[in-house]
């Protein structure tokens, strides 16, 4: 869709004589970080939106050229800091692809466990902040938010036991993982996911049949199948618009082919469809975690020796693109190597960035209150948008 068309305002049959320009962000309670929307209002209705990004730009791709293959994975986690495991995984997968390094099966399974636990934690935060957007810090939204944070905390505890860190892990390294699981960890993880599965039932009981929640989400922010494909959204957004696309299924990596799971697809394309998709993903992630822990093979956790120097990994000349299914969609990393210890060029494909591009197409015509509901259902993380 051409850019000029996006900037056009929609016609809402407004009887007044003055349009109101309103800045939502960069500092705003529901901007999910630092994001600025310049809204054009006719009364309560948004007729045009201009999205301004870049407030959190940290030159990540340039940084990637100055740090070695050993150093960068722990920085990669800072792109999408809510789902750090998957962005690390995308980077090391790209390096492994270019250098043709094999990953032991045990390490592949551990990566899957970490990635799926991360997806659960990320979706917990999504549900909480989304309800906070719709329900307010002084209302039922805050209640859901605190419930979700409570469950996310359990997952973070498990990840802390695994890696020593709670948010940015440095778990992956080229050729495998940095840490093996501590004794008794798998039992704890099983207990945690069992517990969270029961709690997800509670969330669905609280939200699924709630007339106010349905009124706020159904039919709001509809992304048609064509629009989703034209803009290039991915993850829960495109699955909520009726496209059965999941990188884990379309192009299995890290032995995802071994596991039995369902890719949820909803056809409505509205906020509620995206909610449904993510709620099923919660359960499917739990299923995958259980299967991976069940079938965890013995063996080494890395095909390469432990890290002794920062220039240890050298990648032959070449280039490659690796993609993984992050919590927000397809996270890709494109790498060009000139044979040295650092990449010659590195490029991120952030899921949030591509998903956010759909906002100007779907927001106009909605009320101000819907803007935050749509934003929350897109679930952007601005570390990943601006990088």
């Amino acid at each position, binding site marked *: 869709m051409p850019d000029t068309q996006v900037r056009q305002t929609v016609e809402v049959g407004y009887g007044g004589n003055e349009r109101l320009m309103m800045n939502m962000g960069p500092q705003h309670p529901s901007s999910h970080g630092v994001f600025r929307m310049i809204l054009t209002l006719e009364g309560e209705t948004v007729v045009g939106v201009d999205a301004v990004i870049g407030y959190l730009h940290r030159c990540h791709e340039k940084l990637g050229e100055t740090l070695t293959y050993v150093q960068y994975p722990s920085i990669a986690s800072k792109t999408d800091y809510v789902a750090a495991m998957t962005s690390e995984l995308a980077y090391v997968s790209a390096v492994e692809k270019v250098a043709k390094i094999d990953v032991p099966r045990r390490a592949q399974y551990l990566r899957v466990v970490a990635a799926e636990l991360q997806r659960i934690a990320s979706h917990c935060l999504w549900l909480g902040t989304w309800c906070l957007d719709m329900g307010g*810090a002084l209302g039922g939204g805050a*209640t859901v938010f605190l419930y979700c944070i409570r469950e996310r905390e359990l997952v973070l505890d498990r990840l802390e036991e695994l890696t020593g860190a709670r948010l940015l892990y440095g778990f992956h390294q080229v050729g495998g993982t940095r840490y093996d699981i501590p004794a008794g960890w798998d039992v704890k993880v099983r207990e945690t996911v069992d517990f969270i599965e029961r709690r997800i039932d509670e969330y669905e009981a609280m939200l699924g049949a709630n007339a106010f929640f349905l009124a706020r989400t159904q039919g709001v922010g509809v992304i048609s199948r064509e629009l989703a494909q034209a803009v290039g959204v991915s993850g829960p957004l495109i699955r909520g618009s009726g496209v059965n696309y999941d990188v884990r299924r379309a192009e299995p990596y890290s032995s995802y082919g071994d596991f039995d799971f369902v890719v949820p697809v909803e056809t409505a394309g509205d906020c509620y469809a995206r909610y449904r998709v993510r709620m099923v993903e919660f359960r499917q992630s739990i299923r995958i975690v259980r299967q991976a822990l069940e079938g965890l093979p013995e063996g080494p956790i890395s095909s390469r020796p432990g890290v002794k120097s920062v220039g240890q990994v050298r990648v032959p000349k070449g280039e490659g693109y690796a993609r993984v299914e992050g919590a927000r969609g397809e996270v890709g990393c494109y790498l060009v190597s000139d044979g040295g210890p650092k990449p010659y060029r590195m490029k991120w494909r952030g899921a949030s960035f591509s998903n956010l591009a759909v906002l100007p197409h779907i927001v106009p015509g909605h009320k101000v209150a819907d803007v935050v509901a749509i934003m929350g259902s897109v679930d952007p993380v601005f570390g990943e948008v601006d990088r």
Partner: protein
Amino acid sequence: MTLPPVAQHALEAFVVLNAVILMVTYVTLLERKFAARMQSRIGPYYVGRPHGWLQPIADALKLMIKEDIVPAAADRGVYNLAPVVFLVPCMLIFATIPFAPALGVADLGIGVLFFLAVSSLEIVGLFMGGWGSNNKYALLSAMRAVNQIISYDLPFVFAALVPVVLAGSLQMSVIVAAQQGLWFAFYPVIGQLAFLAYLVATLAAENRVPFDILEAESELVAGFRVEYSGMKFALIQLGEYAHMLGTSFLGALLFLGGWLGPGPAWLGPLWFLGKALLVFLVVTWVRWSFVRIRVDQILAISWKLLLPATLVLLLATGLVVATRGAGGV
């Protein structure tokens, strides 16, 4: 010793005013504790251990010593006056509430009418605040406020009139006396429905979630009071909670039999307070369980559902009373 009537009324008003302010202060603590339990938290704890008994005082003190900021572009007069204009009607509603037989500032013959009329005046202060701040968020909030309060005052009034028709009087003490046998909240069908409608309209009239679109901090930051700080903010908060408490008291008076209850007569005010807090907690319970709905949906609920329903209810009440023969007492 007998005081001249003017002095006596002044004294009564002084006592009631301070009692209301004290109650409002501690109602905030009650709400915070209640919300905390709902959210599996503890809530205020450290200021005044155990359980934060001094937290409301600390909050009030903090707000008092905060810097008072007036935006450069604000309409100074309107901006400064708004908190007072907002607070006065919210406090005035307590003038007509009797806390027990003959315990109150004034048990007017038109008590309910006075209450309803004064309580809807708060919108003036609210709109002044939103307009005077010269802020787009505040202005949007003020426009929403006018929409919402006009829409919900009518169902609120109609629901409150059902007990009035049943009792045949606008005087609060008479309405309570008429509930001697049966509280109006339990009056078959019409009373029960009216109580429900009253609770819904109360939520909207007090701008609580799911109807808190004026405040809507995730959209409008803090709505009409986004530019207020320090003492002015405290006055607006005080007014809001006073209004909420006032409508809770009115609900207890109209539907839950006021000070009626088992035990000796001196327990009456305590019964009354307990019932008012019950109404308050029901409203709070709803507030902390639902997400906010949109402005157009709120208006649709009022004009398409609540208003016709309460109107029919009021007519039905009239029919019941007419067929019952004697109106009320």
